C-alpha cells in the first residue's frame, strides 16, 4: 500500500472527525441536510477513497478501484444539486478533507521531508480530481433539470385545439426545431386518436422562418398523421414564406396549403361533408353548420 493509503487507513476515524469539525466551521447548510446524513456520507466516502488509494492502480481514476468512490461522489453531487446546494458547497465538502489529511501526514512524516512532500502531493492531486468530479456531476444534473423544463415548456406551447367534430387545429408559435417537432407530432397524433379526428390544420402564422429543415419537420408531421389516416392542411402561410418555399425548391405537392386558417377550416368542413348555412337575414347571427345532403350511393 502506498504511504498515503497507510496514513489514511491508520488514522481513518481521526481524519473523519477533524473533517466534520472543519466543515461545521465553514459551510454546513444544516437547513438542507441533517447531521446524521452528513456523518454517513463522509464515512462512506472516506472508506471509498481509502479503497481507491489502496487499489492496484491508485492513479487510474477511471479504473475499477475508484468506481465506488466515483459512484458515491456522483450520487452525493447529484442529490445535493437537486437539494439546492451550490457547486462550491459540494466541492468544498471534498476539498476540506485536505486539511485533516495534510496535518496527519505532517505529524507522521515530520522526519522525512521528501516523503512528506510526495505524500502531500499525491493527496492534493487526488482530492482535486475528486472535487472536479463533483463539479462535473453537478453541472450535468442541472442541465438535466433545464432540459426537462424545456421539454415541459415545449409541451405547453403547442396546444392542440378541437375546432369541430373531427377537425383539429395546431397553431405553432415560434421556431420549429427537431426537438420541438417530436413534441408536436406526439401531441397531435395522440389527440387525433383521442378525438377521432380526420383533419388537422397546422397553422404556421407564428413560425418566423421556414427553411428546408423546418419544411422537413413539417412534412414529417404531415406524413405521420397521414399514416394514421388523418389529413393535414397547412395554413397561415405568409407571402414571404411562400416565396422562400418556392425559391428553396421545397416540394409540397402532396400537401394542401392555405393562407388563412379560416380558409383551411372551410376546406376541412367541406371535405368532411359539411356546409355552413346562414339561418337568418341578419349578418353574423345564427350561422349553423349542417351536414351536406347525403347523395344516394
Amino acid at each position: 500500500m502506498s504511504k498515503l493509503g497507510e496514513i489514511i487507513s491508520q488514522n481513518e476515524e481521526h481524519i473523519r472527525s477533524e473533517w466534520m469539525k472543519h466543515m461545521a466551521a465553514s459551510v454546513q447548510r444544516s437547513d438542507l441536510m441533517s447531521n446524521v446524513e452528513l456523518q454517513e456520507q463522509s464515512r462512506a466516502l472516506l472508506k471509498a477513497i481509502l479503497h481507491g488509494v489502496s487499489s492496484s492502480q491508485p492513479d487510474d481514476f477511471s479504473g475499477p478501484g475508484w468506481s465506488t468512490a466515483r459512484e458515491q461522489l456522483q450520487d452525493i453531487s447529484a442529490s445535493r444539486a437537486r437539494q439546492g446546494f451550490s457547486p462550491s458547497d459540494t466541492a468544498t465538502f471534498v476539498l476540506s478533507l485536505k486539511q485533516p489529511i495534510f496535518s496527519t501526514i505532517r505529524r507522521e512524516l515530520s522526519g522525512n521531508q521528501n516523503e512528506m512532500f510526495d505524500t502531500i502531493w499525491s493527496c492534493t492531486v487526488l482530492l482535486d480530481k475528486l472535487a472536479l468530479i463533483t463539479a462535473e456531476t453537478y453541472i450535468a444534473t442541472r442541465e438535466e433539470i433545464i432540459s426537462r423544463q424545456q421539454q415541459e415548456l415545449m409541451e405547453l406551447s403547442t396546444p392542440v385545439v378541437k375546432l369541430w367534430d373531427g377537425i383539429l387545429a395546431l397553431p405553432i408559435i415560434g421556431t420549429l426545431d427537431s426537438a420541438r417537432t417530436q413534441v408536436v407530432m406526439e401531441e397531435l397524433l395522440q389527440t387525433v386518436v383521442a378525438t377521432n379526428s380526420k383533419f388537422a390544420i397546422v397553422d404556421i402564422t407564428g413560425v418566423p422562418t421556414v427553411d428546408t429543415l423546418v419544411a422537413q419537420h413539417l412534412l414529417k408531421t404531415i406524413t405521420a398523421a397521414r399514416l394514421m389516416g388523418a389529413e393535414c392542411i397547412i395554413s397561415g402561410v405568409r407571402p414571404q414564406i411562400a416565396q422562400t418555399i418556392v425559391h428553396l425548391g421545397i416540394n409540397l405537392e402532396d400537401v394542401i396549403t392555405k393562407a388563412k386558417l379560416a380558409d383551411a377550416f372551410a376546406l376541412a368542413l367541406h371535405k368532411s361533408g359539411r356546409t355552413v348555412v346562414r339561418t337568418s337575414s341578419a349578418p353574423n347571427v345564427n350561422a349553423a353548420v349542417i351536414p351536406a345532403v347525403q347523395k344516394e350511393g
Partner: protein
Amino acid sequence: MERIPILRMGPFLLITIQVDMHDKLAMQLQDDVTQRISDWGSAGVLIDISSLEIVDSFIGRMLANIAAMSRVLGAETVVVGMQPAVAITLVELGMSLPGVRTALNVESGMELLYRSLGTSLGVAHDRSEA
C-alpha cells in the same frame, strides 16, 4: 403452422394483425390475401394494425406489397389503426408507405372502401358467391 385469419365481410376482407409477425407468417399472409381475393372476388381489403406496437421496414414493405398486389387484382386496400408511436417511428425510419391508403379505425376504413366501391365497376359483386 399458425396463420393470420382473414375474415370475409361482404365484398371486403378483414384482416386483424395482433401478433408479432415473423417472416414466414408475413409471407403466408401475402399469399393468403391474394388467394382469397381471387377465390371470393373481393373488392377491398381492410388491414387492422391497431394492435401492432412495432412496424419495421419489413412489415412496412409487406403492407405496401399487399396493397400493390391487391390493386392488380382489382381490390383496394386500407390500413387502419396505426398507433401514434408507430407512425412517428416509421416516418423517422423514412417509410411513408406511398400507395397505401390509411384510415383512423375500422369504421372509417370501411367507409373509405364503400366509397371506392361506388366508383369501381361493380364487377366484384357479380363475381362473389353468396
